[in-house]
């Protein structure tokens, strides 16, 4: 059974950024979903999907920090890579404390991004595999 490709969600209010990141991840062989707002993303959440979220912290209305809080409330452990164009130590601390697996400054380099996705999603894939095994072991 082939290992399914990683599905990465991109949440950013700016279309140009969304499009560019989608292209980059697709070029790296990942599946990509994009969302213009935090609420759209939260509504689309399904168990085990996506494998990783690239979350812009600065968005109108529901910003990245609010999304992180909401995920915590939902006990959703989808790995989050926070990205921001407004980099401050407070934002970094708040994001990581809020549950983000990684914190990256815009503009983000492809290697840094892919490596952050990989390490963030590694745990989740392992967990997914364990969960899948548990399901298959269950008669």
């Amino acid at each position, binding site marked *: 059974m082939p290992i399914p490709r990683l599905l990465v969600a991109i949440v950013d209010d*700016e279309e*140009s*950024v969304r*499009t*560019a*990141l989608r*292209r*980059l991840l*697709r*070029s*790296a062989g990942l599946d990509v979903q994009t969302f213009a707002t935090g609420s759209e993303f939260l509504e689309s959440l399904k168990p085990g999907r996506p494998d990783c979220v690239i979350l812009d912290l*600065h*968005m*109108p209305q529901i*910003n990245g920090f609010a999304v992180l809080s909401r995920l915590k409330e939902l006990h959703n452990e989808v790995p989050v890579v926070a*990205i*921001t*164009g*407004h*980099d*401050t130590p407070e934002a970094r601390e708040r994001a990581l404390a809020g549950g983000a697996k990684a914190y990256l*400054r*815009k*503009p*983000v*380099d*492809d290697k840094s*991004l892919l490596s952050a996705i990989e390490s963030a999603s590694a745990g989740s894939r392992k967990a997914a595999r364990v969960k899948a095994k548990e399901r298959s072991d269950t008669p």
Partner: protein
Amino acid sequence: MAVDLRDQGYPRNDHTPKDEPASDRLVGIYTRLGINQEFDISFVGRPNEATSAQWECFPWAAVRLHRPYSQSQFLPIIFKAEAGCAVATPGSRGFDVSPECSHMNLVTVIWSMIASACLTLAAMHLLVWFRKRTAWANLLFALTAVATAGMAACEVGTMHAQTPEEFGLFLRWFHVPGWLMIVTLVGFVRLYQRAGRPWLAWTVCGLRTVTLILDFVFTPNVNFRQITALRQISFLGTSISVAEGVPNPWMLIGHASLLLLVVFAIDATVTVWRRGERRQATLVGGSIIFFVTAGTLQMVLGMWEIVHMPLTPSLLFMGIVVAMGLELSEGVLRASELSDEVHETEARMALAAEAAGVGIWIWNIALNEVWGSERWMRMFGFASDADVTFENVMQRIHPEDRETVEREIGRALAERVDYAGEYRVVLPDSTQRWLTALGRVHPEANGSGGRMLGATLDITGRKASELEIAHQRNELAHLSRVTMLGELSGSLAHELNQPLTAILSNAQAAQRFMAREHVDLDEVRSILADIVAADQRAGEVIRRLRSLLKKEEVHHQPLSVNDVVQEVLKLMRSELMNRGVIVHVEVAKNLPQVQGDRIELQQVLLNLVINACDAMAERSAGTRRLRICTELVDTASIHISVADRGVGIPPDMLEQVFTPFYTTKVHGMGLGLAVCRTIISAHGGKLWAQSQPNHGATFHLTLPVDARSAEQREDKHE
């Protein structure tokens, strides 16, 4: 020098009475002549032979007079003497040396005085007309006076005529100045008094012209068909000639013209009187009526030989000339008084202008001559005796200011409004001065040409202070701007990082796509297009930032307030988002432009928006609302308001927030609002605050509408 009359070819009278020695008769003559024989006269001829039978017949004499007695150009024979002359006339039996001849001849004296007075007056008023060609009344008066002098000359000619032919000739030529006299008199009444019926005027002139023509048609003249003899009568103690002969009935035309002239004068005088100019009516009108009537009566009575008297109209018309002269002199006198007043006023003005450091100038537009006071000439670097034209002045004005000055002066001339302007002049030694000028247009009566009068003040010192203050204000504004942008640095970085992210990620994606075996060229094209767009956006952000950060001189230009609002919102987009502030913008459409400095106005709005955000920081998310409105107020100014839902400002602090170094922020310098108010004042506007505690604060600012933009707007509406 003595002249022996026998040498002149005159006949000698040999009726020498034996009973009376010549010396006794001479003593008698001398006594009557008022000559002191002992001191005043000496004989050079032979006095003993100089005797005659009658008193009136004095044969010849050669005398030497030691003091002047009289002379007359009208008497033919003159005994010239060393110190004067005695006068004799050739009589039928030798030489009549009549005592009158040697006396001051009253007729000659009076008529000569009339002629001289008239010619002097004529010369004066002719000069007035030469200087001011529109003074037609003065020209007509001068001609009237010349005509009177001519009439006087002809009259003397007739009175001293020796033969009927001579009399006839002088009388014929008398009609030439007579014609001129009447025509100019009619013209004077019409032009100066602005009265009299035109048809009467034309009739009088026409009849008089006919009379003049007939005068040269008939022989000897229009007065007489024939002059048969001359009669000697005594007039003013002088023996003068009057004619006897057959009157010419055609002269009735001349008399009719005189009668009509009287009617014309009466009619004109009534008009002038009714108009309220009673002095003029009495003086000029009254004298014309009286003297012309008297002259006409004299002509009629004399011609029809009802009375025997000489022709003396010039004596009467002299009365008219005097009246007219007095009337015109009144004007000249008033002009002279006014001239004195003007000179005094000018002197006072010059003194005041000099004391105030003001240069006075007058620009004669038609002649393109600029006269300037000494100070004004110095202000422009002209020599005090230089001939200055408008172009010379323009050349001195700084090239950057020249177009504005020319345009504003052109507008003042076209719209007949006052000119006011400030400009720089560059003097020949390359020094630069700031001047301010005020000018007023004085058009000619016909609306063309005219003059522009004005005053100019050197404001270089004031301008330097103003420029220094403006420079300091700009420095402060720049400092405030940089500080403000420092506060926004995070948001601004975000604004820049967004397009940079798009560029980098797109480019790296493209690299990866290109590394594949099958390159999707459409994808690559799309990526490149996005990179270009993102790059342009980044450039915009940098341009906006740079314009706010760079230190430049204030540059006022027509601009749209709504554009300024949008620019500020773009700059603040990220900040507003970060702070969770919801912005409502209500901008009025089709607003006229304002004159302003784009950067400074952006700075003011940025400051107000940041303050509003700060004021709402403590409010819960979702209630942080900012409202920006623009609207036109009474067509002359634009009102902009920035309202927040923050904590508000206590009433007693509403003014204090604009004072320098007043701040409620931890890191604030307290300069923001003070600088904003200075900027808006420099734009001719106002900035003030309103607040309801706990319901937020509203900052209002007004800016005057750009005059040209308002005009275009009005045109569009029309």
